[in-house]
């Protein structure tokens, strides 16, 4: 029983999450006794496509050309790949693209979908898999009732496993009708050279305890030293101290870095919903009863603005060793 993974590319490159998806798919492939095929839509070089073999894909289908994301057309292409590979499990990332495509495919194939899954299935017959619900406050075990199963994998939930394998590369002509794409892209603006908040392994975040948008320099410096990205709590973006792009929390960005450092953030439940999947949390807050300390691994009770200079110099010294 074969497994198909949709591996999204960003300007022709894969990301850590693509390798995580393949690693996860290979584990399910082992459980089912089947192989893993990766599907790539758009222009990606052979060198890049070959990398997917190292995480357990035995076959890579690539459409070569092909334009920007259109949910209908991409669902057509993925459906063609499912038919070609006779896949019984189809896996996407639980990001915006993955969720938009997986849900359409679920209806197209009449296959049950479990989104935001956090672990390998407990069993494959019946198909039982765990996901987060209530914005991380609980887990649900989902039973998929159909023969074909669609999953979206929560980011940073599984990890990357290198297998040292190689994949055969195949040019794939899905035979789809490009005119099925109804959305018309008019403009694309991209930031370049900046670590994306949702990709960052380290995130440095500020809240109201930073007292003013003018006080962000130490956070910027710390993020730079750690190779991380900047985030903020909702009051900060609502006040206009920082851009809404940095708002992390239930209604903002949901992140799962290896290290999350919260400065002057009290940790309202809505904020924690966006960051509680972080592997390690360090919090600095002047209120010892702030709820952020219930979510944090390490904490300092103190004024973030006073703690930051020394913290930065100690981290610099530690990293210089």
């Amino acid at each position, binding site marked *: 029983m074969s497994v198909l993974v949709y591996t999204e590319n*960003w300007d022709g490159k894969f990301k850590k999450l693509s390798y995580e998806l393949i690693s996860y798919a290979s584990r399910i492939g082992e459980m089912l006794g089947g192989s893993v095929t990766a599907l790539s839509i758009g222009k990606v070089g052979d060198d890049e496509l070959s990398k997917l073999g190292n995480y357990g894909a035995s076959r890579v289908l690539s459409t070569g050309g092909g334009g920007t994301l259109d*949910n209908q057309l991409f669902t057509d292409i993925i459906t063609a790949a499912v038919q070609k590979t006779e896949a019984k499990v189809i896996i996407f990332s*639980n990001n*915006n*693209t993955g*969720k938009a*495509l*997986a*849900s359409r495919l*679920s*209806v197209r194939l*009449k*296959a*049950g*979908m*479990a*989104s*935001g899954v956090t672990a390998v299935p407990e069993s494959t017959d019946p198909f039982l898999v765990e*996901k987060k*619900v*209530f*914005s991380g*406050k*609980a*887990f*649900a*075990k989902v*039973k998929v*009732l159909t023969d074909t199963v669609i999953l979206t994998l929560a980011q940073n939930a599984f990890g990357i496993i290198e297998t040292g394998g190689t994949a055969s590369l195949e040019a794939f002509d899905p035979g789809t009708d490009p005119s099925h794409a109804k*959305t*018309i*892209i*008019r*403009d*694309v603006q*991209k*930031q370049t050279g*900046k670590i*994306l908040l949702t990709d960052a392994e380290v995130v440095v975040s500020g809240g109201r305890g930073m007292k003013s948008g003018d006080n962000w320099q130490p956070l910027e410096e710390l993020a730079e030293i750690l190779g991380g990205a900047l985030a903020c709590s909702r009051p900060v973006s609502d006040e206009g101290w920082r851009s*809404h792009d940095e*708002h992390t929390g*239930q*209604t903002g960005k949901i992140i799962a870095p290896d*290290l999350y450092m919260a400065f002057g953030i009290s940790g309202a*439940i*809505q904020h924690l919903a966006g960051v509680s999947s972080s592997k390690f949390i360090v*919090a600095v807050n002047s209120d*010892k009863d702030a709820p952020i*300390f*219930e979510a944090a*691994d*390490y904490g*300092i009770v*103190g004024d973030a603005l006073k*703690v930051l200079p020394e*913290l930065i110099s*100690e*981290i610099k010294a*530690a*990293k210089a060793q």
Partner: protein
Amino acid sequence: MNILVCISNVPDTTTKIRFVNEDTAFDANGVQWIINPWDELALTRAMELKEDPSNPIEKVSVLTVGPAACEPTLRKALAIGADDAIRIDAEAGDAYFVASQIAEVVRKGDFSIILNGIESSDYNGSAVGGMLSELLDMPSVSAISSLRMENAVVMISRDIDGGREELSVPLPFVGIVQKGIAQEPRIAAMRGIMMARKKPLQVVPATDVAPLTETAEFSLPTPREPCRIFDAENIKELVNLLQNEAKVI
């Protein structure tokens, strides 16, 4: 042209989550119910679009799938400004069940723009909007952070990784919206609350659809280890442990 905003009735985001019936059902005892936050932003934007006289929008309808206990949430949506409400009388099953119910209503109605929040804060499925669009064979655009109308054409900005994409889409279409679509959710005024009582709320029977998934069991996360508090005089020790014990820097 008419807008339909699909609303999920969810526990207030500060609710303490508990389960009953041997962890197979959510404990709704004492829970405050609200309009799912993203759906509330979608409704706010729908009202803004309707109120701009340059847009040819006649009516904003809201819809939910749920039992009679969901009606206060629909009334709240009417108080915010929706013109009428539809409740599909069924316990919301899985996303496929819900999307199939909504699709039936859309097929019988006359909606050009169908808005869904990007996820519901209870089951975090993020699937109903996409499924609905596929059931209706309509274009869908997800992660919409801005929606405008120019000469009756819908112009959209959506967030993509590390940037934004500007696009347009023919009507009818399904829009899946997130933060940014409206600045702040609109709060119902007293006059709106009074008027909401008289606005039409139609109850339609559910259609027979078999779900594709079911929830077998819920569980709560294992509590985290208590936070280790360091003295502000002892930052060196904290950094040492971050580097050598936690190995995160």
